[in-house]
């Protein structure tokens, strides 16, 4: 298969305008500017490209939701990439920044936007420096600014560095953060397409989504849609990490088998180890097990299997790793990253960590597993944004799929610490509030 996103990715100097142009860069933009914005939008719609940031919403559709007219509209590229296990945007920005910029200019043209921003996580300092240099090059070459390449399009692009907060990847948290506030998610509706940045209509897309745009313009939306499987068109960068021998980013056609990704591309777990569980779409996706390795890696199949493709990040955990360790790491992460705005997420993540700590220490009973599962149910669907669900769903899936291991873990830890059953009975919940 020809690489679309990773075309020439390791070409030395691809991050410079000179090499990018020599490799055909900005030709798609020139072609797009010869058409009307709505024609370009039609290509995006035809491609059926689904967002690569996590939610998987069709990009063309989202762009078409922006109201027409001359009000201030914005395009924001989500380069916050903080979902554990995900590192694909990093490689794209570092090695091929102009592909992203070109994609943004085309998207802005299609959505009739004239101000754009890239919100990059503050930790990606090296990538931000590269992008800043690329933006300057693009401005000098007339790809950004007033009347781009003599067309009607005017577009500014500002790189905005974040400062360390996973929640700023959530699109409305990102908008608040970009407005200079705490990155708390907003109530939806209104959706950003109607009222986003500075209350203006805003299109938000992931780095990978926008980086795909030049390829779509190059090959035509229909041709792009022909790649992949139903409801999952195109190629996808998959970040594979954890217990695999060749961790890294792989560009694959959607619909490739998961086994092929984990074993053939990433080399599978170290020798003598099996796979206990794997996250198919970042740490927020419910876990799958070795039984699920033959699932086709696409949006619908993974959803049907009770999980999700998410950001396209596979984390492999081998069978020598206690599931409780994984659960605890995960819960602590979400507790740390909860913005604190809504009750179930703020309190639920903390409570879950506290219970897992007891479970890990052997100061728990199987009843605590029930309580923990029920707390996850109390979070799911009740929060302002989906960060709470992002913890509750994988934790729930771990308890459901590995309950015997949790119970054994409690038992073993208790023996290790010499705790008697008598002490434990003190930990049985007591009614705290009399009616």
């Amino acid at each position: 298969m020809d690489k679309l996103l990773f075309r020439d990715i390791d070409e030395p100097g691809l991050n410079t305008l000179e090499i990018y142009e020599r490799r055909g860069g900005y030709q798609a933009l020139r072609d797009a500017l010869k058409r009307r914005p709505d024609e370009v939008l039609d290509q995006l719609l035809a491609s059926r490209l689904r967002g690569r940031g996590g939610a998987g919403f069709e990009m063309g559709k989202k762009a078409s939701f922006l109201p027409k007219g001359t009000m201030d509209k914005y395009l924001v590229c989500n380069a916050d990439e903080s979902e554990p296990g995900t590192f694909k945007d990093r490689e794209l920005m570092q090695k091929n920044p102009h592909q992203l910029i070109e994609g943004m200019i085309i998207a802005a043209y299609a959505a009739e936007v004239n101000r754009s921003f890239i919100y990059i996580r503050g930790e990606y300092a090296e990538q931000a420096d590269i992008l800043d240099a690329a933006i300057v090059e693009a401005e000098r070459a007339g790809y950004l600014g007033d009347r781009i390449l003599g067309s009607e399009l005017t577009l500014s692009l500002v790189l905005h560095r974040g400062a360390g907060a996973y929640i700023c990847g959530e699109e409305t948290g990102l908008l608040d953060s970009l407005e200079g506030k705490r990155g708390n998610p907003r109530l939806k509706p209104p959706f950003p397409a109607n009222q986003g940045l500075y209350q203006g209509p805003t299109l938000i897309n992931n780095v990978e989504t926008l980086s795909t745009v030049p390829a779509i313009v190059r090959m035509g939306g229909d041709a792009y849609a022909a790649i992949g499987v139903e409801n999952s068109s195109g190629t996808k960068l998959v970040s594979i990490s954890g217990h695999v021998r060749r961790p890294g980013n792989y560009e694959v056609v959607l619909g490739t088998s998961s086994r092929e990704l984990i074993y053939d591309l990433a080399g599978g777990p170290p020798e003598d180890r099996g796979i206990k569980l794997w996250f198919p779409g970042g740490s927020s996706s419910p876990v799958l097990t070795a039984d699920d390795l033959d699932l086709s890696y696409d949006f619908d199949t993974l959803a049907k299997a009770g999980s999700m493709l998410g950001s396209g990040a596979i984390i492999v955990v081998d069978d020598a790793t206690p599931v409780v360790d994984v659960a605890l790491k995960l819960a602590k992460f979400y507790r740390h990253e909860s913005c604190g705005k809504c009750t179930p997420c703020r309190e639920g993540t903390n409570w879950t960590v506290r219970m897992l700590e007891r479970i890990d220490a052997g100061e728990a009973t199987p009843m605590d597993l029930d309580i923990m599962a029920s707390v996850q149910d109390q979070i799911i669907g009740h929060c302002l944004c989906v960060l709470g669900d992002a913890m509750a769903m994988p934790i729930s899936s771990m308890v459901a799929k590995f309950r015997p291991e949790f119970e054994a873990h409690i038992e073993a830890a208790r023996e290790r610490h010499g705790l008697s059953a008598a002490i434990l009975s003190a930990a049985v919940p007591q009614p705290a509030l009399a009616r």
Partner: protein
Amino acid sequence: MTEVARFTHGSRIPGWDDAADLEKAPAGVPDPAITEVPAELREAIEAAMALYPDRRSAAIPALHAAQEHHGWCSPEAIEQVAAVMRVTPGELTAVATFYDMFETVPVGAHAVYVCTNISCSLHGADDLYEAMLAAAGDDAGFNVRSFECLGACDIAPMASVDGVYLGPLELADAERIVADVRAGRPPVPEKELVRRACADPGVTTASGPDAEA
């Protein structure tokens, strides 16, 4: 009062137990007439404000600039940013304390973020973090923190040293990193992320996935 362990993950200012100091004046927008701001910091903040349709958007870039200038987001630094941005220091405090990269207590100049999230911890990141802490010892020049996923699980376990991503690291690298930083050298340069080739065997350019080896 029972001490409850908190602020275990990352450095966060404790403030729960603090009352207001009733001797202080209320903190409104600092009057430029009585707030001195170093010229280069003022320029950086004003340049940032000029980039956005609403000057308030510059809060994070301005705090980055102030942190660079002062070493941390000290009350003085926050007041200076507030004076230039014409906002209250309270608004900036709300922002500064929300984000992990802003330091609201004095810290060492060299930031070492060790990723201890899932993928890295599956590769021994917790030990690496301990090793980094031990290597830095009580050298006040270092600010060693355990961080959430830094987006570099392909080089697990890894760390970001003064913004440069390094990995995969071994425990022994901790001492080398500290020594290199102290000597003013780029730390473990052969492990810089930016030098790595793409893992995908299908990429067709001259350098392939094995080039790094």
